[in-house]
């Protein structure tokens, strides 16, 4: 068994924490884990990705092209950028709230939100799009959008372990100061998904 997750976003969005939580939870579930993170210059508002590989065997840390079972996109354009990494029938969970780089503000590049979101929806038939940043603000801090997305992902049944294991990892890993906001964000994410399911 092997399950490959790619988390894509912008430096400062909590991509590394997300990957750490997934890795810890997988370990608790008795799986081997290898991850690869982007640490360094790109953490300053650059494009960052984490590769998380879970399974019974140990592999190299990088997911091959068209190999990811799941992409968690913290930001629409970064989710789209990494779509060549997704398997044919892979899943995507994408935050629709954009982080607009300075290059766009000063007119050196473009960010067509609606085109990118439509592209994700049309290209990946298993994509779930949510405004996780808005939901995180409701929970008390826009920065916990990453944990909202984890809640959505877990509730969608896209992780090879139980929601409660991820919840446990979250409680063990997060500093006390931020724990309440993050627990709330996680729950909001879970409920969001259940509500979406009910509507369908």
């Amino acid at each position, binding site marked *: 068994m092997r399950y490959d997750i790619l988390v894509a976003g*912008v430096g*400062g969005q909590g991509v590394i924490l997300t*990957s*750490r939580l997934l*890795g*810890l939870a997988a*370990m608790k579930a008795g799986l*081997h*884990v*290898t*991850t*690869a*993170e*982007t*640490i*360094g*210059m*790109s953490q*300053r*508002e*650059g*494009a960052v990705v984490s590769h998380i590989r879970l399974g019974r065997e*140990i592999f*190299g*840390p*990088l997911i*091959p*092209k*068209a*190999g990811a079972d799941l992409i968690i996109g913290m930001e629409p*354009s*970064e989710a*789209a*950028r990494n*779509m*060549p*990494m*997704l*398997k*044919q029938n*892979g899943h995507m969970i994408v935050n629709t709230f954009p*982080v*607009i*780089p*300075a*290059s*766009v*503000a*000063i*007119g*050196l*590049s*473009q*960010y*067509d939100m609606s*085109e*990118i979101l439509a*592209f994700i929806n049309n*290209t*990946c038939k298993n994509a779930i799009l949510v405004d996780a940043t808005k939901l995180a603000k409701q929970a008390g801090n826009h920065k916990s959008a990453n944990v909202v997305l984890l809640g959505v992902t877990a509730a969608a049944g896209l992780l090879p372990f139980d929601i409660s294991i991820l919840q446990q990892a979250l409680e063990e890993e997060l500093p006390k100061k931020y724990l309440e906001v993050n627990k709330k964000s996680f729950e909001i994410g879970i409920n969001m998904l259940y509500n979406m399911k009910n509507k369908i």
Partner: protein
Amino acid sequence: MNKVQFLMGNQAIALAAMEAGVNIATGYPGTPSSEVLETIAQNADKYDIYVEWSTNEKVALETAIGAAYAGAKAITTMKQVGLNVASDPLMSLSYIGVKGALVIMVADDPGPHSSQTEQDTRSFARFANIPVLDPATPQEAHDMTLWAFNLSNQLQTPVIMRTTTRVSHGCADVTIGDISKASWDIEGFTKDPRWAIFPKLTAQRHPWLENLQGELANIFSASPFNCISGNGKIGIISSGISRKYVQEALGHLGLNVKLLEIGTPYPFPEAKALEFAKGLDHIIAVEELDSYLEEQTLQLVGRFKLPARVLGKIDGMFPKCGEYNVDVVEDGLQKCLKYIGAESGIKTPVPIVEAQNIPSLPNRQPTLCAGCMHRTVFYAFKRALNGISAVFSGDIGCYTLGNAQPLDMVDTCLCMGAGISIAAGLQHAQPNVKHIAFIGDSTFFHSGIPAIINAVYNNANIIIAVLDNRTTAMTGHQPHPGIGITATGKPTAAVSIAEIARSCGVKTAEEIDGQNLKACTDAIKRVVEVDGPSVLIFKGPCTNLEKSDKHYTIDEQICTLCNYCVEQLGCPALFVIDDMPAIQSTCAGCSLCAQICPVDAIVPGGED
């Protein structure tokens, strides 16, 4: 008792060093190596370990060498370019050797992700005659570090633990052993001529050094870190993280292949390689960075007149540059198999979309954080020198990111500490242009000081701008000599940059509030008139470290939609929505935009 933890490769190395009973740990921060020393520092008090961030890698290595001379177990950590700085002591040390144990942890950065070069420490180790271990996983990084301490102690030689980004910054479940307090029951320094290098001593020690290489090659040939598996007429030799990519590719290949995995590249385990090479028609070398294994294999084949044809980078089967992954390795293997005339079972899966078919995406380069003091200083220089012809020499740190548009304030960047000397060289060559050198606080202590003395001594008419945010920001906010805190968080003397500059003979050395645009601009205008080198020290916080709860917002009633703030600064918190400038929640409240708004439309307030 062994236990399993979820660890980053660098943490695994740190814990192994502590298991080995390390007494002294030194280093200079550098991505991707920094977490090794950080982890030891966090545990220093608990296990009675001495830990320091040194001023630079040369000093770090020399400090560790001193400790090892006394019989202590020492580790020093740095990134690959740091080894260049430390190369002077390193090259001599190989002749002298050590007494306790000395492990030099060096992290390479294929890609590169966060480095100036794609150099290969395996080749450096060969050049320096120092054994090098090359793990593929955090677990191996742990296990090899333990072994490195033993090897160093037994053979009285320093040992290099070389990692790459994916090993250092990858996490995995790692089995670790018990850690107890470091034993300080060490022999101590014993006076002996062997510790003082002279030409005569070097001549005496050189044969020892050469013999040691042979001895090590034999030890390595017997080591389980070099292993042969599989069979067939085609062989693959690989080391480091590439081994993992090879294993994954072989799973798709459906072909009998003999595999030699090398964990100890130098001294090359020749006996093991010979055992592997016998009976092979082809040997494929799969390795990131230098064609090190390939060249070793070519030598072997030549010397022993083996029939095998060696394939790798030299023939262009594999890329010479950049980081590898499974796709790169599969591609190279397919090329080799085609050349050999063997069937390849590799089927490349089709992605749901190819990169070129994705609609146009925004360009997202790394940039200075919202609220970073460096932005204010760069902008002040832009304003103050408006219309004056000037060259801006940058240096290594977050402030290198001042190169991005619209600031565009880094015209040169080469290596740690080079900005000042390059500005001086430019000035001697082109005296009619203003030359400004930017250098960070940590970089100033690392290697800026000799360049300042040189500028004074040789009368270079340059402006040296020290961007002092009281941290080594880019590598994860390590302390340095200027802030009065040690690696383990203890109070210590704070070395003043202004006083250093003055005592080096700089006549104008001023400290300025780096967040006050007017103060910065005025100071710059003042020193432009001064003859000889002058030093401006801009002080302010790193907003990424000292989070502020301040926030600014744009008063829509006053804003004239001129977009001046957005266009001038490139602050990532500023953007335009429906033709209206707006401030995002990432604003750190530095007030720079408010200071430049022509109609004072930007005011404190907004979310958070």
